[in-house]
């Protein structure tokens, strides 16, 4: 891979927060998988809207409302385009968690006989199976657990190999005629490995099951074409991709969204409301009840425009470089155990690891004192940590704005952890 061509000094200057200090050191922010920093362009887009056009959308004839509606729908087209989709295929949500709950509850509502006649195709019968992986973020596990518990469906799990790659034999044996949903992460937020979407989609399709992709950790880091991936539904979170909090997207194939019953109900998603019965709009509005996150949609559009300005291929190439530097560096430090250390896998710039003999919290505190912000804990993936025989790990995750030098500072600091805590050689 050719060396990075990004002008990192210019990019970093776009992120005011990156110039901060942390505990007396220049901040090294390596927690972007939890939440990314926002470029000034995103902040400005929101502020400009609030100062000049602010009005509720899709409601009311005044010029402001019309202008706001236009900006809001332009934002939809922009963000949809970023993931290769048509605007009508993009539903705004308050985040990935909300999007995954939408998917699970909508299927639950179909099971309860709600929605259109065509919604019946999503209804679950007792004994039907929902499939997830052992690597799931809780956001893509609990909605299916609860849906199974409510409907009598059975939850099944695709195993993960010791090296962090999904066990496709396990997938092939778990996915079968009773499978109705296959939900999985594009990239696990602990392993950082790009999963084989095509293989899983093919198995799910053969089984006649719906596919749900958690694209939280891929959308900010690699070029994404959701229709080309062939998944039925996919979610991502704005705050992880340089955008605002409280904002995310649910992509859905047109025919799937068309037949799915609503989840949240309320204003702006209806045609006719009677005291006892109501009719709902087509997608995407059917899934967008209530006042929408207008300024946040505009902010998220600014974020993906910023990423597109750099180019997702360049972003990805840069992050692949960072990842290799980080992983190779960590491998060479004694007492470091990497989670999901497969060679040759496609990856985003994220490493989770254990420092033998030092609890992750202590290790994280040590880095924090040196101005390095990483994440410690189970990263909302308790089953995955249990699978690897631990309760917590430390995770360093980079984004487009991180530098080789920051990776080196991380590696240098990590080398000092065991010594400080009097562990090991």
């Amino acid at each position, binding site marked *: 891979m050719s060396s990075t061509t990004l002008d990192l000094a210019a990019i970093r200057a776009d992120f005011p927060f990156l110039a901060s200090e942390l505990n007396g050191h220049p901040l090294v922010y390596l927690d972007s998988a939890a939440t990314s920093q926002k470029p000034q362009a995103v902040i400005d887009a929101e502020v400009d809207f609030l100062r000049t056009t602010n009005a509720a959308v899709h409601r*009311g*004839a*005044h010029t402001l409302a*019309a202008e706001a*509606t236009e900006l809001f729908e332009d934002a939809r087209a922009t963000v949809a385009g970023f993931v290769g989709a048509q605007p009508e295929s993009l539903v705004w949500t308050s985040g990935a968690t909300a999007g995954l709950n939408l998917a699970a509850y909508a299927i639950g509502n179909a099971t309860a006989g709600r929605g259109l006649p065509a919604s019946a195709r999503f209804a679950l019968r007792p004994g039907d199976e929902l499939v997830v992986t052992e690597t799931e973020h809780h956001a893509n596990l609990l909605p299916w657990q609860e849906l199974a518990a409510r409907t009598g469906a059975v939850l099944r799990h695709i195993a993960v190999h010791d090296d962090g790659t999904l066990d496709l034999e396990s997938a092939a044996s778990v996915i079968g005629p009773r499978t109705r949903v296959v939900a999985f992460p594009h990239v696990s937020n602990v392993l950082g490995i790009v999963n084989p979407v095509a293989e899983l989609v093919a198995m799910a399709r053969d089984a006649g099951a719906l596919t749900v992709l958690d694209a939280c950790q891929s959308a900010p880091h690699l070029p994404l074409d959701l229709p080309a991936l062939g998944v039925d539904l996919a979610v991502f979170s704005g705050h992880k991709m340089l955008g605002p909090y409280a904002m995310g997207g649910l992509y859905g194939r047109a025919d799937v969204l068309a037949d799915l019953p609503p989840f949240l109900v309320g204003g702006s998603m*209806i*045609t006719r409301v009677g005291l006892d019965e109501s009719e709902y*709009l087509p997608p995407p509005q059917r899934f967008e009840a209530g006042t929408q996150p207008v300024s946040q949609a505009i902010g998220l559009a600014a974020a993906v425009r910023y990423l597109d300005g750099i180019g997702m291929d360049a972003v990805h190439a840069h992050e692949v470089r960072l990842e290799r530097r980080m992983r190779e560096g960590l491998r060479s430090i004694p007492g470091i155990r990497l989670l999901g250390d497969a060679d040759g896998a496609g990856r985003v710039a994220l490493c989770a690891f254990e420092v033998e003999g030092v609890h992750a919290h202590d290790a994280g505190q040590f880095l924090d004192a040196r101005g390095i912000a990483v994440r410690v804990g189970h990263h909302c993936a308790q089953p995955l940590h249990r699978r690897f025989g631990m309760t917590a790990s430390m995770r360093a995750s980079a984004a487009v704005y991180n530098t080789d030098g920051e990776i080196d500072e991380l590696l240098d600091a990590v080398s000092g952890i065991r010594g400080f805590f009097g562990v090991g050689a």
Partner: protein
Amino acid sequence: MSLESLYQELILDHSKARDGYGLAADEAPTATSHQHNPVCGDDITLRVRLTSDGGAVRDVTWEGSGCSISQASASMLTGLVDGMPREDASALIDGFRTALRSRGTVPLDEETFGDAAALSGVSKYTARVKCAMLAWVALEDALARAE
């Protein structure tokens, strides 16, 4: 654009006169469409009767409630398509849609659109385009159903 150029006399007149108001008898070959604007709750029921060979519009009648733009637009449409071959009616609707979605860049010419050309100004008011389109969408839908 001034309010006066949006609400031209002709529009206000049509919105009161409402040509074609009152549905004709439902005798074949006939098709009816119901359309609804969820934003304001306005609706229209429009009926197209075709000539006995089904090749042309015999007449268009309608009922419903709505703003002066939507009422005038329905009224104007009525006179325009009576007796028109189906294909021409479809082309007319396409042209109307294109102009209304053009944000003022594509005017409606008077030769083709008659009184309805007065609706050109609506295309600058994105929130009102749906009002002007309501009857036209209903006719499009009714013609499709008549197939």
